[in-house]
């Protein structure tokens, strides 16, 4: 079973990676990279690193790639034009799918039994890759590097603002 999942996810990741390089349009390349990141996060789940898999989706596919797509849409005239006129029907499809997901979630939440939820006393996910274990190591053994990364992020924010500022 694990072998099948590995080959499906790994094949998807590899295919998407090759598409990133071979794709002519940067916009499609970025979308393809998002697919690759999602497949890699599935591989992280296989390797029993559930927290890293969630962070991969939230931070990488959610934040960093959105930043990339913002800049691509700002600088590449093709992508803005493509979003506007070529795929107009997609917006209607998005509304229909969104309503469908809303109905599904509402039904799910209505029938959700709180007694089935794991209580706070038992760890949700055991093993070395569990969020609790990871946080314990991160804030004890790796406390100094962790604080230094926050300084690095601050420097990056200031640098990005200074670099992208319009010169008078």
């Amino acid at each position, binding site marked *: 079973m694990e072998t099948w999942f590995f080959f499906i996810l790994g094949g998807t990741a590899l295919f998407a*990676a090759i598409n990133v390089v071979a794709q002519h349009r940067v916009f499609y390349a970025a979308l393809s990279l998002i697919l690759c990141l999602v497949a890699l996060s599935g591989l992280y789940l296989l390797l029993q690193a559930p927290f890293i898999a969630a962070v991969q989706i939230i*931070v990488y596919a959610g934040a960093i790639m959105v930043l990339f797509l913002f800049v691509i849409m700002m600088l590449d005239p093709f992508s803005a034009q493509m979003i506007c006129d070529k795929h107009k029907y997609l917006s209607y499809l998005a509304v229909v799918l969104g309503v469908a997901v809303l109905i599904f979630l509402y039904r799910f939440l209505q029938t959700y039994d709180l007694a089935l939820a794991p209580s706070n006393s038992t760890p949700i996910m055991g093993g070395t*890759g569990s969020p609790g274990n*990871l946080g314990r190591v991160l804030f004890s053994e790796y406390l100094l590097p962790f604080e230094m990364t926050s300084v690095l992020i601050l420097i990056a924010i200031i640098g990005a603002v200074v670099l992208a500022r319009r010169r008078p």
Partner: protein
Amino acid sequence: MDIQYYLILSALLFVVGAAGVILRKNIIAIFLCIELMLNAVNLSFISFSRYLNQVHGQIFVFFVMVVAAAEAAVGLAITIALYRHRGSLNVDDADLMKW
């Protein structure tokens, strides 16, 4: 599932990303390929972490992600500045420091 499969997949992803950095001319496409290489390294970190049964590899993946975020922010700011000055995203147009 042996660790070799994951390492081979990681090496393949890294090689694809490195080839993209060399082959592509668009600066944003080069950035995307760099992200791909960082992710290939992350995969081998996680697989070693799993097979050595230690958490340190996953901690390092955190730091790699932080560096990737900082690199994306600064790199995209440089891209915007380059586009304002040169009016092009082609790396061959930015040849002021080329000898």
